[in-house]
């Protein structure tokens, strides 16, 4: 009964600590004083499986709030960001959104990070009539539009990415491809689009491989594709597996079979991690990732470069497309607040009618039929050259 004895001797102070903790916990976080701030709710996957997405999103959102408040807020109101981490967990995400709506009474919510979590809360946005600007990609988030009146998303749909990719393939004469997708929401959605659109673009999928998000070795999948007689490999994943795919592709000497990555590879970090192996990898990428490559007269160049400089100065890390999503959603929300104030219904209407909003990921043109507002033209086909992005020819 060591435990018992221990419990006895630690008994008194542990009990005190316990109660202090409990009391501390009961006092909810984030109750801030201030003169009628405008609230923006945010739910990102700061930890858990999609933390590499959520983290830059969180940082970006926080940075923007700082910037806005430093400039005196919106219409004289400071902006308050109420941000919850859903730990990449649907249940927690659901609870967090409820909390934002019911307790924090936010008029608009940005996030969640992942498609799965977004889908887990779209119903809430509808039920409680609070506009939600998701940062995730799946088209299901905003379709069918009749039952998604309150939901918007700023990430390009996978169909745009696939479309851009297939266009490029067609141009290069590639018609037989092997695809490998990660078995999470991101990969599954990509896989769906890859398969769905293939025929439309006259492309045959000769190998269809899947792997887990925590897998450590993709050579088996790659080998299989290599054996399948494909002309190109498409890897659709985000996170370490995207890097593993590149390394495996290189190790298996598959240079003859070009590797297309999804936009999930669109982070300098991954380029770094892949090192030389990434040379020649192709991917469609939002412009936020390739700001410096854009011609100076491109309308997005200015916002991208501003964001890039501020973010990289503040956090000493390169920007990513995920942070870009947060930028887009945050600025959309801010624009709406500025225009119509903290009224959910008005914000929704404002968002639905926003046109030519220049964001990191493109120029958004929302409409009642399109709650995304992007097209495949908002993407650039990019190739990795000397450890950096270059526009593909």
């Amino acid at each position, binding site marked *: 009964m060591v435990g018992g004895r221990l419990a006895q001797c630690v008994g008194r102070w542990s009990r005190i600590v316990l109660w202090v903790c409990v009391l501390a916990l009961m006092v909810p976080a984030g109750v801030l004083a201030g003169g009628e701030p405008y609230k923006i709710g945010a739910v990102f996957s700061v930890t858990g499986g999609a933390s590499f997405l959520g983290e830059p999103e969180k940082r970006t959102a926080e940075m923007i709030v700082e910037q806005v408040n430093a400039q005196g807020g919106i219409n004289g109101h400071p902006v308050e960001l109420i941000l919850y981490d859903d730990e990449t967990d649907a249940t927690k995400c659901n609870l967090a959104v409820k909390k934002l709506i019911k307790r924090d009474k936010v008029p608009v919510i940005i996030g969640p990070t992942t498609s799965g979590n977004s889908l887990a809360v779209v119903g809430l946005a509808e039920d409680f009539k609070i506009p939600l600007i998701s940062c995730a990609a799946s088209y299901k988030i905003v379709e069918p539009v009749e039952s998604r009146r309150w939901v918007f998303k700023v990430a390009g749909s996978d169909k745009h990415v696939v479309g851009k990719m297939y266009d490029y393939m067609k141009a290069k004469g590639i018609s037989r491809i092997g695809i490998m997708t990660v*078995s999470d929401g991101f990969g599954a959605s990509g896989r769906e689009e890859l398969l769905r659109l293939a025929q439309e673009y006259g492309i045959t999928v000769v190998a269809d491989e899947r792997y887990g998000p925590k897998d450590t070795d993709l050579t088996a999948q790659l080998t299989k594709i290599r054996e399948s007689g494909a002309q190109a490999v498409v890897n659709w994943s985000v996170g370490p597996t995207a890097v593993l795919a590149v390394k495996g592709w290189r190790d298996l000497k598959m240079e003859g079979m070009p590797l297309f990555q999804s936009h999930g590879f669109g982070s300098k970090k991954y380029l770094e991690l892949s090192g030389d192996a990434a040379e020649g990898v192709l991917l469609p990428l939002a412009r936020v990732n390739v700001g410096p490559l854009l011609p100076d007269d491109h309308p997005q160049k200015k916002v991208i470069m501003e964001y890039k400089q501020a973010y990289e100065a503040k956090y000493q890390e390169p920007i990513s497309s995920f942070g870009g999503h947060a930028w887009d959603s945050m600025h959309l929300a801010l624009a709406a607040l500025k225009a119509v104030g903290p009224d959910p219904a008005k914000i929704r209407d404002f968002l639905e009618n926003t046109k030519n909003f220049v964001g990191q990921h493109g120029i958004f043109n929302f409409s009642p039929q399109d709650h995304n507002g992007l097209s495949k033209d908002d993407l650039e086909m990019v190739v990795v050259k000397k450890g950096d992005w270059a526009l593909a020819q």
Partner: protein
Amino acid sequence: MNLRKFAPVAAFVAFMAAFPWMVAPFDAISHYTDVMVFAGIFCLVTIGLSLLMGFAGQISLAQAAFFGIGAYASAILTGRFGWNPWAAMPAGAAAAAAVAWIVGVPALRLKGHYLAMATLGFGVIVHIVLNEEVEWTGGPSGMVDIPGLSVAGVRVLSETAWYYLVWTFVAAALIFSYHVLHSRVGRALRAIHEAEKAAEAMGVPVASYKVQVFVYSAVLASLAGSLYTHYVTFLTPSSFDLMWSVRFVLMVVVGGMQSLWGAVLGTVFLTFVGNEWLHVFADFEVLVYGGILLAVALLVPQGLVVWMQEKLSRRRETLLPRSE
């Protein structure tokens, strides 16, 4: 039932009934009702698990799988085939029961780490199936557009309504389990836990009872899954992965395995800890969570409820040498 036993139960029931009205006026905690809905759903799982672990002495790291089977059965039957949710629910439970029986018969012959490994393996397999059978489950992107629940033709919408619905289920499960425990069957289960050989020698068909309670826990988990489905109206396999199985076990252990109240309290406690209270620690949240678990496991291995009970009754008890 004498007064001393009855009073806490009555107090508990009254507290639970009043809970939504108690938290509603306070903005800061008004959403606690939501948390309690989830806690209630998890309670269904942990009550079954507590019967299995604390009373029959068998570990299961597959509860999330049964949770998932119920959830997906409900989702598919209602979403794809347009069944009434109330019909889909027992169908899901039956499916979970059947699976539990098939797995349980060979698995429950194992003990200790081996049983843990077998159930864990099964749980992971179910998770993989949910991920891979895209046609049926929607795969990792999940299932959307699952109908909500209606009671007597009225759609259950508000959190408070869900709260009462879910906790009615919990109460029913508690009462049923309590009755089971205080019956011939329950004694047999506890007997298996405490001395399997002796239980068998007393004529308890040990293998059959283990499977029965495993099936029961699977049925409860499946019901919980169905409720979860209709409450969230969206499913992804990630809600049913290994981590969740571990979490269910932790809930039971933290509350105290040897008590149904332990399962309930542990579940409510950890649900709040995990979803609410630890947010103040921001990045340190995981550390604090781990720390709490470690502290409970080291200092009060019998669980919070049993520990408190012991504290209360220590004075009355004669301290006799106990068998290890």
